[in-house]
């Protein structure tokens, strides 16, 4: 089983965002970068599927700056076999441009499965996975929380409006991982050492023109200071009154 897992280098979710001098990006000084949390579910799933199939290859693919090699090394330390870095000075805001570069890399790779996290926790697009699937002409199931593979087929469970849907599809396919799909392993020291020797191919990302420009990035407006109405259940009638007459939400 040959599996590609597309991962993204993102700021740690505990990051306190500061705006950079260009007014259109975050100030990265002192920011810790991690493998996208949803991407980790995708990596773990790829490793389990490979091992279950009794062999094959897991290729970790990232698009981004040189520093994204560390992101790939994290996936290799977990157990991926090799990496591909599609190098770009910065990751464009145009999700379709990213998907095109990934699709160009994946199209002749002979992959049985292409996995993504369901979204990146920085730009929140939920888009690159399904876009890549469309460009590759492959079936796609997003936000998968459970997966079984039987022969050339897959059965996946995904969260939908007000419930869960169980779907069936033929391989090759593109899936995006939801939290709960598995529990990602921590890389063991042995894995971290081994990762240093695994091959990572670096090549320029085939990014066309980005048609999405970030004009500005700003901190959200501060909420006006709230008030503590008081202590204990006796405050509740006042709260309800304010919700009705002042906030007008009841």
């Amino acid at each position, binding site marked *: 089983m040959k599996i590609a897992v597309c991962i993204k280098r993102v700021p740690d*979710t505990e*990051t*306190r*965002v500061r705006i950079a001098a260009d007014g259109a990006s*975050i100030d990265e000084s002192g920011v810790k970068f991690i493998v996208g949390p949803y991407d980790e579910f995708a990596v773990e799933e790829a490793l389990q599927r490979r091992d279950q199939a009794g062999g094959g290859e897991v290729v970790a693919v990232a698009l981004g700056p040189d520093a994204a090699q560390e992101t790939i090394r994290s996936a290799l330390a977990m157990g991926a076999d090799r990496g591909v870095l599609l190098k770009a000075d910065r990751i464009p805001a145009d999700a*379709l441009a990213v*998907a095109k570069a990934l699709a160009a890399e994946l199209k002749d790779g002979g992959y049985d499965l292409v996995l993504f996290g369901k979204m990146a*926790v*920085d*730009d*929140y*697009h*939920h*888009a*690159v996975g*399904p*876009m890549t*699937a*469309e*460009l590759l002409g*492959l079936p*796609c199931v*997003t936000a998968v*929380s459970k997966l079984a593979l039987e022969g050339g087929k897959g059965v996946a469970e995904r*969260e*939908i*409006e*007000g*419930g*869960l*849907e*169980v*779907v*069936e599809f033929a391989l090759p396919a593109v899936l995006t991982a*939801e*939290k709960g799909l598995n529990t990602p392993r921590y890389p063991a020291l042995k894995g971290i050492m081994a990762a240093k020797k695994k091959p990572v191919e670096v090549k320029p990302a085939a990014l066309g023109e980005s*048609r*999405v*420009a*970030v*004009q500005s*990035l700003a*901190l*959200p407006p501060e*909420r*006006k200071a*709230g008030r*503590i*109405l*008081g*202590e*204990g*259940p006796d*405050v509740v009638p006042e*709260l*309800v009154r304010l*919700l009705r007459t002042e*906030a007008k*939400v*009841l």
Partner: protein
Amino acid sequence: MANVLAVTEQRDGALRKTSREVVWAARQLADALGGGGTVDALVLGAPGVDAAGSKLGEVGADRVLVAEDASFARYAPDGYAATAAAVAKAGGYGAVLVAATAGGKDLAPRLAARLDAPLASDVTGVGIEGGKLTATRPVYAGKAIQLLRLDAPLAVVSLRPNTFVPGSAARGGAVSKVAASAVSRVTVREVKAAEQGTLDVAEASVVVSGGRGLKGPEHFALIENLAKALGAAVGASRAVVDAGWRPHAEQVGQTGKTVSPQLYVAVGISGAIQHLAGMRTAKTIVAINKDKDAPIFQVADYGVVGDLFEIVPRLTDEVAKAKAG
């Protein structure tokens, strides 16, 4: 360029609330573009769904295009994408708008790829600047706000639920049928429906969330009862989802859902930065917490300090009374 297509969403044959939001936003955008652009609303559903589309003129649809197929009763990724893309290609549109619901988040990128159009997801504002479409959207789960410019003759935009409040704009809204393309590479084997009436936390206009202050999963009944009284969806903090008390579908925050309800009630949630990021755009925030120094009180419009086990049942009663009266 001045025409705008609004892709609506129905459930059990009835249009969802977000559908009116999307049509209304499309009307605003078409008017801002000038040139007398038309707004077309696309309704996809099982045969008979055309009746649901008949009221979209009220919120600004000039025409309502209905694509019916038995397989469209629920959101069908390939069929919806193929049908909407065909309509979008034929209509001379400058923008295609979709609601950023669970289904819309799946549909919008597929449409963008099929139309070779740039995408702005989960936006809270749209505008026109120098003839180009602009979109405002929270990123880093709301820790920052991004303003995007989309440089293409056609763009796809998904709109955050509860953000575009529809007004009234009497337009024709004449209903006509369009071809449905019921292709699918993915077969639905089974649907495990959640409890009747379960609201998605990302779309509900009122959300009641519980955190570790509840001390155990069994006490979430308190949250569920208050949610019921308020007609709200139940949310949860990351701590309680990670502890396995609640499903991930309910998680609010940077690794869960970002929400913008009219009213957000945080119960026993201290307010970690990644949680605050996910709910700070709520219109009104109520916090109930025993620790008066909890960060949640810094963003709460109304805070009540104390024992949630006493306060929440009282609040549930008072809300029920207020609603009845």
